[in-house]
């Protein structure tokens, strides 16, 4: 007997024909397909909205934290973070500014002096944090000026003026114009004192600021560094707060600054390194949202699986016919897989239309939570705005799209295998 001389199929699979059949098969049960598409699109839109609001809320917290904190990048004494102390300062602040400006960074470089002091009035003495800032240019000016509830902001040449939080003012029982003695110990063991006059009282809605912070011009705070032996002509500071116009440049600029400063006594820190607890909170919050997204994905998976599997089971006889005619298992696998792929593509497309429309609305008008959180609330040392605006980055868009699309594709594997395993003789008996 001869070896079988079978015809070999053309190497190119009839993919166009299979694609056409797959598309038409989707619409055989139009209502079922539309219901499945709607449920997936709704779930997808919900996921987009959730992620957008979540990211918007987190980004708002981060922006507030950076603006209320020490900028995108903080430059300070190398030992300061481990054990803050008034004698740990950058001796030649002027030189550091020149080095930073030479990097060409786009943003502002704010010199700051942070000191632990004792604030004393005739009525009380409390521990406080004295922050000396450039009262004309510092970011805190933009943030706190609108929050002055009594008095006024410190003027340009006012070397004795101080601002206190409303909590601090209550503790010290001090009003506008009142005297406050600011005392600090020095490394040598001596103590030094400076006089401040209350020019304004602020309410930042953040207890840590309102109860402990005293703001002054750099010149007043610098007097304490002189007591630590600093040369005032070199413009010493405890740290620099660098605010960038484009936060995405932070990593590169941090490296550039480290390399340019090149001083073991000075460290360059990102805001994430300055505020690890905020990062941890965001990570935990994100984890909770990922669980919610998982629930949505499970809904999507079951929606697709139900539709495609029912469609496959209903067509057992038809698959038997196709096998009888000469279609091989791979063709059937591809056919059903195409159906799932097309359904997924449509679902993602419709989902994005709904999702982006919802996102656009909330990006413009925000979600007003004032009825729940009042004028806002503080958390992890930062401020949460009462109105949350949706924010979606391109990375998130790609992440969500790929996640849903790949998940739905994987869902289609089982029905495709089921279709490919059909045996013609049994199928044709159904």
């Amino acid at each position, binding site marked *: *007997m*001869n070896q*079988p*001389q*079978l*015809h*070999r*199929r*053309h*190497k*190119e699979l*009839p993919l166009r*024909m299979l694609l056409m*059949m797959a598309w*038409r*098969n989707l619409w*055989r049960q139009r209502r079922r397909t539309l219901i499945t598409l709607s449920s997936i699109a709704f779930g997808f839109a919900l996921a987009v909205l959730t992620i957008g609001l979540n990211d918007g809320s987190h980004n708002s917290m981060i922006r507030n934290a950076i603006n209320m904190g020490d900028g995108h990048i903080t430059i300070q004494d190398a030992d300061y973070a481990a054990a803050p102390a008034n004698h740990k300062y950058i001796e030649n602040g002027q030189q550091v500014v020149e080095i930073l400006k030479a990097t060409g960074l786009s943003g502002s470089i704010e010199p700051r002096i942070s000191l632990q002091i004792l604030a004393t009035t005739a009525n009380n003495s409390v521990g406080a944090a004295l922050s000396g800032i450039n009262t004309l240019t510092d970011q805190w000016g933009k943030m706190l000026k609108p929050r002055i509830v009594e008095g006024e902001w410190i003027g340009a040449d006012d070397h004795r003026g101080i601002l206190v939080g409303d909590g601090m003012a209550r503790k010290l029982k001090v009003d506008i114009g009142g005297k406050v003695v600011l005392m600090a110990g020095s490394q040598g063991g001596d103590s030094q004192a400076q006089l401040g006059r209350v020019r304004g009282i602020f309410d930042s809605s953040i207890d840590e600021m309102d109860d402990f912070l005293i703001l002054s011009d750099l010149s007043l705070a610098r007097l304490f560094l002189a007591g630590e032996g600093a040369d005032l002509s070199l413009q010493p500071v405890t740290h620099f707060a660098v605010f960038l116009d484009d936060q995405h440049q932070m990593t590169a600029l941090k490296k550039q600054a480290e390399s340019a400063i090149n001083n073991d006594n000075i460290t360059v820190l990102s805001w994430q390194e300055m505020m690890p607890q905020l990062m941890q909170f965001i990570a935990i919050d994100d984890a909770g949202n990922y669980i919610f997204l998982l629930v949505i994905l499970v809904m999507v998976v079951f929606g697709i699986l139900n539709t495609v599997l029912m469609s496959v089971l209903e067509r057992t*006889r*038809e698959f038997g*016919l*196709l*096998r*009888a*005619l*000469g*279609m*091989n*298992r791979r*063709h059937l696998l591809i056919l059903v897989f195409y159906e799932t792929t097309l359904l997924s593509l449509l679902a993602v497309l419709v989902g994005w239309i709904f999702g982006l429309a919802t996102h656009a609305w909330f990006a413009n008008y925000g979600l007003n939570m004032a009825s729940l959180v009042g004028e806002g609330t503080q958390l992890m040392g930062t401020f949460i705005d009462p109105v949350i605006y949706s924010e979606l980055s391109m990375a998130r868009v790609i992440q969500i799209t790929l996640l849903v699309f790949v998940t739905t594709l994987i869902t289609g594997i089982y029905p495709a295998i089921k279709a490919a395993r059909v045996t*013609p*003789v049994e199928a*044709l008996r159904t």
Partner: protein
Amino acid sequence: MSLLELNNIGKSFQQGEITVRALDNINLTVNEGEFAALVGPSGSGKTTLLNIIGGLDLPSDGQILINETEITALKDSQLADFRLFKLGFIFQAYNLVPVLNAVENVELVMILQGRDKNQSRERAEHYLNLVGLNNAMQQRRPSALSGGQQQRVAVARALAAGPRIVLADEPTANLDSENATALLDIMHRLSQEEKTTFLFSTHDVRVMERAERIITLRDGKVESDKWPAKELVT
């Protein structure tokens, strides 16, 4: 030279604890161009035998040679190829693909064979014309065609791909008398023109009247194998 050889074909099924012998020691030879009918009462094994010849099912014993190829030794993918290039099927229930129109149903097999798209389309239209479906009807999906029209499409599909053997399982069972007669005439004519072998499983007297060979099965065995026209002559 014989086109189809069945040597000691047997088929057993398990029904619970009972083993059913659906076919037993079938030996047949079919030549090219024959228009033959498998007849017998229900349960005689006609459809089972047709399925085995068509490679849709495997025999429990024996050997099948089609065009000198032992199809019982082929793997699943090879059998699919074999059905694609060598065989045509016509079913009782038409079994057209619902989402394809008439001409697409006919060209489906040719596209699977890897033929040129335009050539497939031309050939499909040609065979649909031969079976009596005009251009307008060729663009309709099966749900928009009558039973007779659907079965004509099935005949065109079976023949357009150029098979050596067409296996037809009760092709006229769901047709009215007029359509059945017309269809049988078409198949008989095409069989003679194309030299295609037709093997029917049937109860239909009209098929038997046209068949040049009638193979009768009973209880899974060949009861008789007659050539009525030759017997008349002799």
